[in-house]
């Protein structure tokens, strides 16, 4: 039976939690009607935060080890 090994880079989880808090628009006032470029401001901020999440995720994948045998 195989035994799993421990994975480093746990700080990544903290970054994701921060990005999650930024993407979900819980911090906007419920009656906020501000628009930027014709779109609700909260939509723009959420989309920017999503793009940051994508870019960070791509970076994590691309800086992961690439040998096919090790962990």
């Amino acid at each position, binding site marked *: 039976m195989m035994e799993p090994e421990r994975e480093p880079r746990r700080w990544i989880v903290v970054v994701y939690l921060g990005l999650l808090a930024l993407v979900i*628009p819980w911090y906007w006032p419920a009656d906020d009607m501000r628009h930027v470029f014709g779109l609700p401001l909260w939509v723009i901020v959420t989309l920017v935060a999503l793009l940051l999440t994508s870019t960070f995720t*791509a970076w994590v994948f691309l800086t992961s080890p*690439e040998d096919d045998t090790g962990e």
Partner: protein
Amino acid sequence: MSNLLPFGIGAWTFIVLYVSSLLLVGWAGRAARREDTLQDFYLGGRGFGFAVLFLTLYATQYSGNTVFGVAGATYRLGFSWLIAVHYMLAIIVFYLAFAPKLYGVARQRGYVTPVDYLKDRYDSKHVSLLGSIVMIVALNNYLLAQLMAMGRALQGLAGPYGDVAYRYGVVGLALIMLIYGTLGGMRAIAWTDVMQGSVLMVGFLVLLVLLLNEFGPLAAATEQIAGSAEAFKVTRPEPRMLREWVSYIIVIGMGGALYPHAIQRIYAAKSRRALNLSLATMTFLPYLTALFAVIAGIYALAYVPGLEGAETDQALASLLRIIQEGSLVGYAVVVVIFSALLAALMSTADSAMLSISSMFTKDIYAVHLNPGADESRLTKIGKRCSWIVVGVLVVMAIILENQASLIDLIDRKFDLLVQLVPAFMLGIHMPFLRGGPVLAGLLTGLTIALGLAFGPFDFVVAGKVWGVHPGVYGLLANTAVAVVGSLLQKPDARHGV
């Protein structure tokens, strides 16, 4: 697509040629077969480089639900349904939690199905069997939804003969999928995914250009909604919706990462570099697909008001009809988009079909029914299994015609799949997790998730408790039982198996 104008002979010729070409690809997949083994049939010989792997992951992940369901949900909920962009991205983020590591282990140990990992990790027939059942049930649900959407896609194009077209659509497209899928296995399906993924990507890009051209900027559509009785659909989501947002990220993000057919694509990668590059690229695909579907839903909300209930899943089709009526170019482009929608449906359905077949054959038939069967025999059984499963689901799709909204169907499937998170995502990182507690956790989670989803409880509103999916409550209990139960086992038991 029941709101589209019926297609003419030219459009049908294009679609028939496109769908027939999939059969040629299936035949080419068979010709490229290297050996008569499960690994070759179900994993394409583990030889997928970046281009094939990326496009097969893309075509498989983005289904008919992405196109029809997301546009429809946006029509009902407004910008709040940016949730869909987030959960499609979350799937890739959750791959980080286990995919690179699982790839290394799968390659070393020769896994073919996701359940091979469970067998190897927990050494428990019960965990493996329950894992197989959960995955097969969830995938059957998914495959059924795709088959019904295939029929519905053709239904609307046949004018007064819609019901007949629905049946012919389900049967005809399922038959084509079965032929190329059983001819060339994963290799054929991945190669057709390259075609289907490319058509899908072009289709989405064309869709955005068409929408902008026909209806003007998104800002104008937003202003239109803000000035209507639907103005609440552009404001920040209500607290209940914010809770749903988190819930969708957990249920679809984690559940989607555990799709058996997606896990098998991880196994099929040629190298870790190809896998990492494919997944890195996939992180940007939600903007090309889910976000475009959200934008389409916003345009529909602004310019095609008045759709209600299940009709809202026709929001995108209603927009396409306007474009179709506008000009000959618009008509031709809608044909291309329609082909892309068929591609999205078929590429997801064929992958689910192959995955069900592999799990039934390797994890159930070869373990419980005929342990002595050789690989050639198992491959034949797998092909027969595909025909039987799809045959039964085709009959169900015809019986259940127009029964449920697409989003309702996907919700329940993820409630099940997410219960496998401790076994896979935690199990690969926590050496102390043991089979007994993981099994108890899985049973607990499934009982809670299904009990809340289908029980007669007044506090379950729209399939959720306090805005949270039943699967999340199940997962919390499941994780607690698996982790605490493993920690409470005697050290000898924890390290001795």
